[in-house]
């Protein structure tokens, strides 16, 4: 479905949602392209970059801490920062160490994962350089970005969903949807 079609459908859904008595903020959240999950073709921009410069492989250095990024609609420059569930971590790893599955989603060793822990939804904002692991400071879950974000320690019940990447005109581009539902269990 093209973007226009998707948005129209979501707007139609908004009317139905209000009619059913859904909470307006929920319905609005679905309608807002800034809150839509990253989709194929989206560019990536560093969180806090007012210039909204699309990131390229050269911006992600090996050995550095993961970069927090948002997806951006290439058509109208909408940064998808409207939902905390859209926070993306970008980290560059040694290509030789990537699992075959992870390698398919990587560009020059750069991989992307949700920043939202699958345990209780904290930001996985810590990086353990010696072990090359993503670490959630809230409850200590650790995830291996070289191997599909799988849980290597802690309470998290499942791997960190990955975001496939591809290269387009020297820029990092989202290659598809997150590999699994982003977020934690709410009900």
């Amino acid at each position, binding site marked *: 479905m093209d973007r226009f079609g998707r948005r129209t459908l979501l707007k139609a859904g908004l009317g139905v949602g209000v009619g059913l008595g859904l*909470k307006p*903020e*929920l319905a609005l*959240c679905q309608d807002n392209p800034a809150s839509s999950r990253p989709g194929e073709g989206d560019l990536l921009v560093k*969180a806090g970059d007012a210039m909204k410069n699309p990131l390229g492989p050269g911006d992600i250095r090996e050995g550095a801490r993961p970069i927090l990024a948002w997806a951006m609609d290439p058509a109208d420059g909408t940064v998808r920062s409207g*939902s*905390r*569930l859209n926070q993306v971590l970008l980290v560059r790893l040694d290509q030789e160490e990537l699992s075959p599955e992870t390698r398919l989603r990587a560009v020059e060793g750069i991989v992307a994962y949700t920043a939202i822990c699958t345990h*209780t*939804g*904290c*930001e996985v*904002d*810590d990086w*353990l350089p010696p072990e090359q692991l993503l*670490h959630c*400071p*809230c*409850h*200590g*879950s650790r995830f291996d970005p070289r191997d599909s974000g799988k849980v290597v*320690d*802690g*309470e998290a019940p499942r791997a960190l969903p990955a975001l496939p990447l591809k290269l387009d005109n020297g820029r990092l581009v989202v290659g598809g949807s997150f590999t699994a539902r982003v*977020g*934690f*269990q*709410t*009900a």
Partner: protein
Amino acid sequence: MSLSKAVFALLLIAGPVSAQQPQPAPAPPVPAALRNYKPVTADRLKNPEPGDWLMIRRTYNGWGYSPLDQIRSNNVNRLQPVWVLSTGQTSGHEAPPIVNNGVMFVATPGNQVIAIDARSGSVLWRYRKELPEDAVVLHRTSRGVAVYGDKVFFAAGDAILVAIDARTGKEVWTAKVEENKNGYYLTMAPLVADGKVMVGISGGELGTRGFVAAYNVDTGREVWKAFTVPAPGEPGSETWPAGGDEWKTGGAATWVTGNYDPETNLVYWGTGNGGPWMGDQRPGDNLYTASTVAIDAATGQIKGHHQYHPNDSWDWDEVSPPILVDYRRNGRMIKGLINVARNGYLWFLERSNGKINFIEGKPYVKQNVFKSLDPLTGRPDVDPNRKPGTGKLADHCPSLWGGKNWPPVAFSPETRLLYIPANENTCGTSTGREVEYMPGRSFTGATTGFYLAAGADHIGEIQAWNVDTGQRVWTHSFAKSPNWGPMLATSGGLVFSGGTNDRMFRALDASSGKVLWEFPTNSGVIGQPTSFMIDGKQYIAVQSGWGVDSRGMQARLNLISPGEYPEVPEGGAVWVFAVK
């Protein structure tokens, strides 16, 4: 003629309309157990009937003690399940079954409250509040409901206080406590005192500023809001960097319900860690982090405080409120407060109409951070080598989970013993780093590790301390499990608790600590046990449902000793036991 009169006149002209108009669907019949629901009065909260359990710790003093005595050491081995009910939820089930005249109310994860016929275990109604998928709720649990009048008060995870009609399960009003997108969420049970309903907030890891807020029970209108981090110019603000913004994100969350002294109308509420975790990023004592504050229930004014350790850098939330108990010391009776702190010390304090005085403090688990306490104020002399900082690693015992975390203690006026669910031999490392504040995002700035002290032969404990001598009387230790079990003491000379990774719920002799009975439930028991009576028969109730931090510690232990601490089965249930 007013509009309403005009309408009335038209109705008279038209005659009775009921015959022509479609009838609204009849409301489902109110179950018999709820038809004669007994309203909860201020007097009943102050002096509850022995067979009821109307507040999370049953009484305002926080004792977690039932005066019921039918279940005793000589019959507890015949304790059997009467009924069990699935909650339909995973994650940590920490709330106590509240029982008012045979009607039970249980809060569960997933923003759910269930009303149950306590006799049969039948569901009377079920209230669910949908959580937005991007809600910020870092601990998926609820620690209970409050009951007052004909309402049930529930603190929903997404920072909304809900008043529910106890008879129907329908929402009466909701009040937005704070902005969930900015990291404020709720996990504690509301407290009803002085005719108001009070809540404290979670979010100390997210750059929040703690507070306790009080609401009108009938309307949900906010009556007062007591911030636990002062704004510039307010008392205590001198303990924060002058001219800085640190106080705005200073933490001191209030995520466990306070206790209350009706005599002085003061609420004693505990406060959490500072934000971010490293104290060197917010130089000063940082009042009122890691403290107990005495809040005037009428006005919200903070009239006294005791800070357990200044400039917290260990994530030692001191959110558990002290229990109110008068104890003997040096030949005199002290109107006391006793707190079992996460920092590994047991604190004997004195309450008044405001000021909190220090009496005595001593470690109850391995603690290597405090070199000594000031004999007058209790202020610890902190070993700088045991204090982590930005770019500075330090190791310390206890670990960030503390000697005792949130699970409440119990006190029996008969044995004069205080029962502590403790974790011994835990230690940790912590290294700080700079962290940038972004609303609703993690604001800890620390990398932490966990290990067991050299030579550790166990972790979990139940400790019993005599409050009049300040001495430990007995310890029951669990060789292969941490202890995350809230305590219940009863007049039958028993204490009840779970808390271990073997799914057991157990009864111990209150005087000796001997295990007299245990039962393997569906999951690990981290719920607060309660006791109630129907038709002259005593029951024990508890939720079983492992999760949240108990799950976290188990996972860490399994990393240290692979295979020895496997996952504990999850999924919640309410259990009720009686002697058959």
